[in-house]
């Protein structure tokens, strides 16, 4: 446990608490994707059934593609998100968007993720207009981030544009003081 604490920067009692919560929820010690999905549907009752956001988060946490998340993965991910620097968080977010891990975010990937976040809200009914909104939003983002205009966003572009953007860096603070 000590090494884990050192690696992640949580205190011992925090680690204990996290582990206890984790173990109560998943007695087997491993989280499968369905479990993840059901957790999300508890938090976002309207739309999480359809949304694939949980899938993206899952695959981001599951670094070695094993299909399950161990406690190690979980706590490492958590530490990045909570205790990491702005850059680490942004990197994590980049890997969330970059599903195929090729180092760049393509337009389709961006659309998928944005669509899934909108799905979390729940479908309001009109898929066409939603598509339009999503496309427009993606265009906006790409415009902002794709600095060299090659149609994909690389990690450096992402980091740079996010750090320079006031809105984004302030918004990141919204999720920082998560206390265990």
């Amino acid at each position, binding site marked *: 446990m000590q090494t884990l604490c050192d690696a992640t920067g949580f205190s011992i009692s925090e680690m204990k608490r996290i582990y206890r919560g984790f173990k109560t929820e998943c007695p087997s010690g491993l989280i499968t994707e369905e479990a993840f999905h059901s*957790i999300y549907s508890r938090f976002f009752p309207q739309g999480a059934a359809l949304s694939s956001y949980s899938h*993206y988060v899952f695959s981001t946490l599951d670094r070695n593609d094993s299909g399950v998340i161990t406690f190690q993965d979980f706590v490492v991910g958590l530490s990045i998100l*909570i205790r990491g620097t702005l850059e680490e968080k942004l990197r994590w977010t980049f890997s*969330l968007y970059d599903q195929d891990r090729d180092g760049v975010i393509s337009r389709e990937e961006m659309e998928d993720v944005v669509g899934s976040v909108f799905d979390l809200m729940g479908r309001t009914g009109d898929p066409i207009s939603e598509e339009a909104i999503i496309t427009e939003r993606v265009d906006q983002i790409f415009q902002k981030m794709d600095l060299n205009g090659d149609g994909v966003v690389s990690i450096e572009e992402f980091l740079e544009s*996010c750090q320079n953007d006031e809105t*984004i860096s302030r918004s990141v603070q919204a999720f920082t003081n998560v206390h265990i």
Partner: protein
Amino acid sequence: MASVAAWLPFARAAAIGWVPIATNPLPPPPMIDSKHRTEDEKLVVNISGRRFETWQNTLEKYPDTLLGSNEKDFFYEEESQEYFFDRDPDIFRHILNYYRTGKLHFPKNECLTQYDEELAFFGIMPDVIGDCCYEDYRDRKRENAERLMDDKLDEEEGGDGIIPEKLRERMWRAFETPHTSTPALVFYYVTGFFIAVSVMANVVETVSCGRVAGRNDVQPCGEKYKIMFFCLDTACVMIFTAEYFLRLYAAPDRCKFMRSVMSVIDFVAIMPYYIGLGLSDDNEVSGAFVTLRVFRVFRIFKFSRHSQGLRILGYTLQSCASELGFLVFSLAMAIIIFATIMFYCEKSVVGSTFTSIPAAFWYTIVTMTTLGYGDMVPSTMLGKLIGGVCSLSGVLVIALPVPVIVSNFSRIYHQNQRADKRRAQKKARLARIQIAKATSGAAFVSKKKAAEAKMAARAAGIAVDDNGKEDIFEMQHHHLLRCLEKTTAQQQELCLQHQAVEPSNRFVGRPKFPKKAMSFRFVGSDGNAFPRVWIQGNMDGPMNRKILMMKVFLVLDAIYGVGNFVLDREFVEVDLPFNGAPKKLGTSPVRSASPDKSKVPNVFSSCYCCQGDPHQLELESGKATPNQGGNCSDSNSGHPHNRKINIGNRREDDFNDVQVRFTHHDDRHKSSSALQTQETSFPSSNIEDTSGEAISDNQTNVKISNL
């Protein structure tokens, strides 16, 4: 559901992925004071000695329950720093698991009502029982409800003690429940006998009885003994008609009665006779007449009033109507199919019996039910093949619905058995429970008296040995009852009830055993007479006498209050020597008056000698006996005239004897009791028989009259 609380930090953290998408800045998070942050602490919940420890947030997962809310603070104990509940620890285990895992399970070995109570106490709704156990819970709940309803219906029906007044109601009761009274039983058996006779007559009259002279054919008995059978038939029909009309008269709801199955059967059983009377004995209508006679066989269904098994069979068939329908339908389908095939196979055979498809129906039915009469057999190869398939499938189709019907029958039958058994057991159980209650009730009353006596003694300044701690609760309870008595006192007639534990001797005429009534006349120590108190009731047996004496004192207390006359302390029961033998006048030996100290049991018996004459026992207060009712002048007895009844000292829980001290007339021993008892044996003239009605077993009448 607060199990998500464990994941909330993570979900919030992962939401960082939304950040690039947002066009506007996201709102800042809520500031959380450090004091909101509670370290995780453990609670100890002590359930009747078994300690359960759990994290605090485990319990806080469900804030609308007792343990999750502040309500549990009511049960908090400072010294041991735990929450103490005096409930069942085994069931609490399941309840705590609900908090831990979010699923409430229902154990199969627990009683449903107990479980429900525990859930109600802890504020958990039974609907959160998990799916794995919910069905089981619902089933058992339904069974319980049915059982309770059955019991309640039984009680309403049983209605013991309600004697129907009107003739109609009595008749209806007699018809419906023959075992309740003897004439009903007689009626029941008579009708049963006549049903059997009628059916037998129907059967026998078709048996051949020998040849008719001059003709070749045999003659059935019905022809030979026509008059006799006719008379028999008439008699039976008259009985049935009378029964039908009586039932119709007695029925509470005539329309409903006429529509009921049994009355339809009755009607159909007697109608053919009348119709036959109406028709003349012509040959042209005799065909119809003969048909009518077939309906006479319906009389056999009248037996279903007599047999419960038949009724159950009827219910079963009724309840399995859908299965039976399925059976019939599938059979019909199969018959049509096979008959058609057989017909077309066998059509071409010369001389075949399969002349048409309906003719083939008969073959199919006979084959499918594996009867196989052999009157129609296929000759072609194909026909035989189809015939084989037909018989195999017949077995299957018939075998399928039969288990359903059988299980239905079995269920209904067992339900009936259970209901009957329960009813029989219930009476015995109730009787035993009442005995137990009477004992505890009697003990309670005596304790109460003892306590009050002590109080009075203290008030009067007499020293009393304070043996035994008085329970504060009991003292207050007694006080409450006394207040009630005082409030409701001064009535002319008080009726007290007690449970008779032994069969009583009814107060009918002149009983063999004297001492059915005791009358008490109270004289104060200053000589003022109080109204006479009569106590009538069941005095057989020590228990009843005990209770009776207690009731006497209750009454006295209620009316006069303890302060008006002084009792010596705890009393013991009157030990009256009932051995059931009537005492003759003057034969009973008189117990000599004892000196004041000795205990003299069985003293009341000496009053037998004064049978017929109220014997007055007066206070030893120096007053001469006012000659009301006369002294005991029976010289046979030789017993002293004046007796003093002193309820002597004794220990609290030792109800053995009433010490009755008799002293001689000239013994100036002072007594502190002001009790003058007048015992009478009765011829009723001496006693105002309370309104002439029979005293039921469990009634003690106390009447206060001014004499």
